[in-house]
């Protein structure tokens, strides 16, 4: 072969290989591999679609919360939430200066936002909102990038150390889909947590919304939370920054090593 022929046969080879690779790439997705969403949603699996026409959420009446943490523990056992992780919890605040002081409890859970910033950033489509507004994670699709954990303005996501993917409150979708209440609502001692369908004007949550002034946490986040609060104190609504936090401090005072990668900084 002279040089020219050699070159041409090489060109031919390159062209053929490129065509082959191209064909392979183009035919692969026709086997349903590439998806706008994720396989579960494409299949129309009931757990992924939820209850069409409904819009679930919660109203929490803070006047009734006694800070007993029954909800926290009910959630942990119902959902087998791993050690040191929480889907819901009730932080306690001391407001005012002595002698004019009072305590505030603030039950928190995922707000199942109408414009969830955790969902819009997910690069694998693993997290999404069901048709009834419940925001869930498909633990078999999530690749654990953590983008959603940073994107949630409410710190309501964590890495589950057992499944090794992002995890969060599901509003007990597995119970709700069988007509039961979420575990935290079921166990709420003070009757502070009320669950229901905002699309139904006769539901308890709709009635509460129409009879009391309600508000949400950090309204400026723009995610339109669907967990509303009655009697939420303005001092804690924005979950303000302050140098006083006792979290994790006992651990440090006792000289226990900080075993976790991230811990709260003690003053």
């Amino acid at each position: 072969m002279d040089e020219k022929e050699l070159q041409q046969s090489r060109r031919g080879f390159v062209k053929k290989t490129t065509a082959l690779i191209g064909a392979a790439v183009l035919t692969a997705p026709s086997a349903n591999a590439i998806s706008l969403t994720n396989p579960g949603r494409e299949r129309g699996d009931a757990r992924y679609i939820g209850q069409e026409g409904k819009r679930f959420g919660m109203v929490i009446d803070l006047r009734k919360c006694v800070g007993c943490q029954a909800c926290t523990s009910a959630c942990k056992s119902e959902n087998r939430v791993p050690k040191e992780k929480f889907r819901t919890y009730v932080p306690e605040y001391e407001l005012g200066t002595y002698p004019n002081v009072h305590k505030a409890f603030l039950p928190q859970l995922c707000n199942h936002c109408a414009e969830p910033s955790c969902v819009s950033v997910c690069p694998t489509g693993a997290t999404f909102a069901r048709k009834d507004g419940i925001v869930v994670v498909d633990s078999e699709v999530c690749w654990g990038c953590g983008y959603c954990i940073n994107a949630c303005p409410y710190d309501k996501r964590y890495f589950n150390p057992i499944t090794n993917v992002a995890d969060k409150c599901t509003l007990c979708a597995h119970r709700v889909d069988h007509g039961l209440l979420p575990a935290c609502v079921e166990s709420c001692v003070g009757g502070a947590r009320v669950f229901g369908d905002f699309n139904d004007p006769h539901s308890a949550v709709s009635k509460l919304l129409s009879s009391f002034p309600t508000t949400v946490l950090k309204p400026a986040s723009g995610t339109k939370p669907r967990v509303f609060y009655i009697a939420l104190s303005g001092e804690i609504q924005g979950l303000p920054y302050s140098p006083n936090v006792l979290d994790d401090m006992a651990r440090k005072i006792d000289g226990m090593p900080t075993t976790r990668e991230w811990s709260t900084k003690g003053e």
Partner: protein
Amino acid sequence: MDFGTLLHTISSITPDRPWGIDIPNYFWFTGSSAAAFIISSFAHVFGMKEYKPIAGFSLLLAFVLLVAAPMNLIDDLRQPGRIINFFFYGWENFPTSPMKWGVLLLIAYPLLILVEALVLYRPYFWFSKGMVRSQEQIEKDHHLGVVLGAIGIPLALSVHGYTGYILGAVHAIPLFHTPLMPILFLASAMVSGTGLLIILLPIFQKFFTDFKRVDMAMMQRLARLLSWFIVIDLVIRFFWLTFAITFNGEEKYALKLFFGENFWEVLIVDYVICLLVPMIIGFTNYFARSFKWVLFAGILSAIGVWIFRWNTVIGGQSIGKTTPFLLEYHPHIVGFDSIVSVLSNWSLLIALIALVMVIFPWDKEMANYYVTKEER
């Protein structure tokens, strides 16, 4: 009445933070790659003759940095085995998830550099096989190189700019949430990329070429360039911080808390030692003529940008969202996302540099500018 001082959280939880030490390192790699590419384009696309000698070298450096960079991302994943899901699912989030843009950018960009490098070095590969490319072919190659370089510039800007978007899009974290983030990242990337070139160029010129000389004029030129990039970086940071801390809405409280607590690390270490000092070295003829000082400036600025990436990624996540104060980060020594994984990534980078520099005849090409025909 200042409610902030009256508020005591007496019980709360420690929230999760996903990104560790790998992520600042990833940003440093992609940034330096983009910068190296742009410096190589000074000669390839804009025809600036004075940068010709290092154009090929920095192109190869850009390639290597970008091949090593994504390893950081993969190591930061909790389920790295599911990487395929990134390519297959969730395309409806493409417009709102900057991380997803990486699918296209992280494939297109290294491929483009590789092709450009192959075109650039084609005559040398041919030569080593005893073939000579005709003048016409060489001109064609040159033209192709310019086109590839011109496509590459926006691609290089995007490949690093998108990392700025990843952070800037997170409105939950006040330190990330600024439209300036992509441009801030690009400006500091130019600093670290130039710094890295200043460190590597003399090593390679001195020890791995036939002419075995460090081009001091080039070092001085790079030092001057570095200083100008630092000026741009500082100006953008000035706009960012003045608006973010002074004229901002609610976010300013978190930022005040953050910068108050980290005042010395940020101001003295990052701004003064790692940016102002190298800037002065580059602008002062006395220092810029001295090899040692220029090298020192290169090292400082490369480290400084790494610290900036760290302060941004780790610092941003340290700001509490539901907890009132800052969090602390302690990277693991070994395992995923640890100090050892970052060191391994650097080792991989060095191995790749060695490999690529062995395969590509960069030294032959560079020698053209330093050695006369007779000497060869």
